[in-house]
């Protein structure tokens, strides 16, 4: 198993910076997802690792092998990086049968015909497409095409797997199935995997590690749990999670031997050493971390219901008080009338505090 290491990598297109000063370590055998909005540099990062683009500066190592360095005059082309690459468009060669699509890359490796045939069989078996070996890509469904692309990879036995939004062309049902298959592929090949997506659900469900990127810069690299619960910045907090995280502007007030953050209608006790600038702070709160009561409770925040959106297994309730707007997520199917009162409560532990100017997590 190989690790992938990027040090001080920068890539520009003309005046536009696509990747800025990136240090990235992908542990051997890790399934790492790069998550971010479109144009954040995630695909460029993948293409740099693949060797399809060259950085302006910095170094790239695959395992202990230096594959790119302008300073040292090293450039290993993608052909020699032993990669597996899966594209959004599958990139099957339309004028070749499934069989040819899979074996073309094997031919150059001076393998015997029997060996190639065996590898072909294995790969087709793995994706359950044995009967379709003589079909052309245009005669296959989207899911089958995707599986051919996977089979093509399996046959090459790459040590590094790179996937660029491989599921975004599939419909919702297939997407869930394919997610499982890609994860299994990663496990079978024992390949270090970099997966690029803008879909946070894919990122959270598939990965061992998530890297969130924005504006050419890595915002956070952490486990899915930490990305979700301990976002390093406001951007990460707001980008990850559906429905969108609640954002509250607060003021820190001392006195009576305890420090509290005051959100206007509601305040929470916090530790005294919270490092705030000018007494102002931004807090985030996951919608599912809010407790809810239909009857009045002492010390709870009274709000009225603005909208109720049941999705079946859970219900999104939009509420507001005089100063705050809060989205609440409750399991189950709720039906409530708008403008009815509701009482909410949340704990300090559910809150993350951010510097109101830099957007950095104060706990970090």
């Amino acid at each position, binding site marked *: 198993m190989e690790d992938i290491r990027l040090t001080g990598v920068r890539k520009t297109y003309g005046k536009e910076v696509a990747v800025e000063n990136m240090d990235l370590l992908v542990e051997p055998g890790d399934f790492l997802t790069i998550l971010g909005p479109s144009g954040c540099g995630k695909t460029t990062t993948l293409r740099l690792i693949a060797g399809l683009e060259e950085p302006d500066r910095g170094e790239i190592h695959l395992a202990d092998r230096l594959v790119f360095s302008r*300073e040292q005059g090293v450039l290993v082309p993608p*052909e020699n*990086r032993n990669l597996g690459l899966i594209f959004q468009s599958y990139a099957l*060669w*339309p004028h070749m049968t499934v069989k040819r699509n899979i074996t073309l890359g094997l031919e150059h490796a001076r393998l015997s015909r029997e060996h190639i045939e065996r590898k072909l069989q294995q790969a087709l078996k793995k994706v359950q497409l044995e009967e379709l070996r003589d079909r052309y890509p245009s005669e296959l469904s989207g899911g089958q095409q995707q599986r051919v692309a996977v089979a093509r990879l399996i046959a090459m036995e790459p040590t590094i797997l790179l996937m660029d939004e491989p599921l975004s062309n599939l419909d919702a049902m297939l997407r869930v199935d394919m997610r499982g298959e890609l994860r299994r592929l990663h496990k079978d090949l024992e390949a270090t995997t970099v997966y690029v997506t803008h879909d946070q659900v894919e990122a959270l469900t598939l990965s061992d590690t998530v890297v969130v990127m924005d504006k050419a810069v890595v915002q956070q690299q952490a486990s899915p749990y930490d990305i979700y619960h301990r976002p390093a910045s406001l951007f990460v907090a707001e980008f990850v999670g559906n429905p969108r995280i609640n954002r509250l502007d607060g003021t820190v007030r001392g006195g009576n031997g305890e420090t509290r953050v005051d959100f206007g209608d509601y305040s929470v006790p916090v530790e005294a050493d919270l490092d705030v600038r000018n007494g102002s702070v931004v807090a985030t709160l996951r919608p599912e971390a809010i407790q809810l009561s239909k009857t009045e409770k002492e010390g709870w925040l009274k709000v009225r219901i603005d909208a109720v959106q049941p999705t079946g297994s859970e219900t999104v309730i939009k509420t507001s008080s005089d100063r705050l707007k809060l989205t609440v997520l409750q399991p189950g199917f709720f039906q409530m009338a708008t403008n009815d009162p509701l009482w909410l409560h949340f704990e300090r532990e559910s809150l993350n505090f951010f510097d109101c100017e830099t957007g950095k997590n104060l706990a970090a």
Partner: protein
Amino acid sequence: MLRATLAFAYYKLKTRPEYFLSGFFLVVLSFLVLTPLVEIIRDALTYQSYDLAYRPEAVEGAFTTFHLERVFTGRLSKALFVKPMVNSLLVGVGVTVLGVVIGSILAFLLVRTDIAFRPFFGALAVVPYMMPSWVMALAWLVLFKNDRIGGAEGMLTYFFDIQPPDWISYGLVPIVICLALHYYAFAFLLMSGALMTVDSELEEAGAVAGMARWQRMVRITMPLLLPALGSAVVLTFIRSLGTFGTPALLGLPVRFFTLSTQIFNSLNARNSGDGFVLALVLVVMAAAFIYANTRILGVRKSFVTLTGKGFRQRPIALGVWRWPLTALVGLFIASSIFLPMILLLWESLVFTPGDYSFSNMTTYFWIGSGGDIDLASGEEGVLTNDRFLSALWNSIRLGVLAAGVNGLLGLLVGYAIVRTRGTTISKSLESISFAPYIFPSIALGAIYIGMFSTSYGPIPALYGTFFLLVMITVVKNLPFTSRTGIAAMHQIDKSLEEAARAQGIGWMKRMSKIIVPLSTSGIMAGMMLTFITAMRELSLIILLVTPSTQVLAGLIFGYNDQDQTQHAAAATLILVLIVIAVNILVRRSFGAASLMGLRQT
């Protein structure tokens, strides 16, 4: 550090062949396109050996404005430059106006109205463009030749005993008419393409907004057609400026010179300097015209109203005018395609020139054994004639070779341009592969004579070789083939090649197994287009052919010059048949759109 930089550059070139290709083609094409231009500018501004007859004291190679003075200010200027220039402009403007009007009206009738036999007329309307441009001129002579110059007179004299006046037989009027009947095809193709993409809904939206019918035409349809109209005007004007055959056939007998025939004349009279200056005038005129057009129209690209989804087009009902207009279009098509063919066939069967009676018919000029020195200088009929057969062979060879080279070049240049897109080198390569477009054919021929008549650097003198003909044909067709190549490459998603790279497949194998198979149809269409152009081209190569490299078009021109009109007619018919046969083949295999390579200009 330097070593690392060099090592990196080496690896990069090795792993990115597209950069290597771009650089390589940039150098080669600069040499083939730009150096000749520099060379003739130099030749035009220095004394040449042949000038010593006029200026015995001159030093060969020394700087001089001698040629410029001769052409622009000297005693001969009026004959050398002013008159041909005026004539060229008259021809250019006349052909452009007439051709674009005919083409646009035809396009409108066939695309937007309910005129009868639309598909049939549509297929036939482009046939004149497939034929060599001077076919019409030959046919014109069969009909209207008068006693002004030697040889027999035409049909009009034979059947009605009328001597057509000179201005009908020769000169400006017939040249404009004959060329317009050929070049209207540009306007027709471009305008019908544009008309097809104008959604009726856009006009209907105008109707809903309360516009009257003429307002919708003027305010909505016309502006959308403007870019196509602009391209048609530019294309027609430049082509008619550079054309040689028709002005030569119909102008030279009455000493009506255009710039193109004057260039031919000067080079033939060994006053090459004058010819080069005139060729430069043509290039500057063409470039200025393209520039002006680009400025006026803003962008060269046409407005895109093509959204990819289908839209309705309701044909305009012509009412009582339907059948009269159908008849008119039919008549036009008959007289621009079938009449010339019939006239040429008839001419080729006439024994004593000028006698068009049935009793005077013969197959002698097709299959006769020759030998009679009083009969067409003893020349055999075309099908038994070595001179003809060798010219035919040369033409086909030229067509096939040029097509092959162009196909490969189009593919590789297209690949290099598309894969390095966004870099300076890509832009330069695209511009330079488009540059031959601004050289009128005759001027390019003159430029190549100037450059390759003696050895140039490591390259031996190429004048008189078949290779030079292939080279110039390839260069002249480069703008079209490289465009086909670029279009073909755009069809192939980048990821198809990247997937192959990741699979460890090297460049040669990627090209042969993926890129080439996927771009075959586009490249083949470009090759066929080159073949057809090469077969019928006269203006480009008339200055470069020698007896041993003679091609069909040049031979026909020679026959006509010797007043062997039957041979000329028979040979022309064979040439036209081959060209049309190949055209039909291309349309069958690759669709009609493939022949409209010019739509992208």
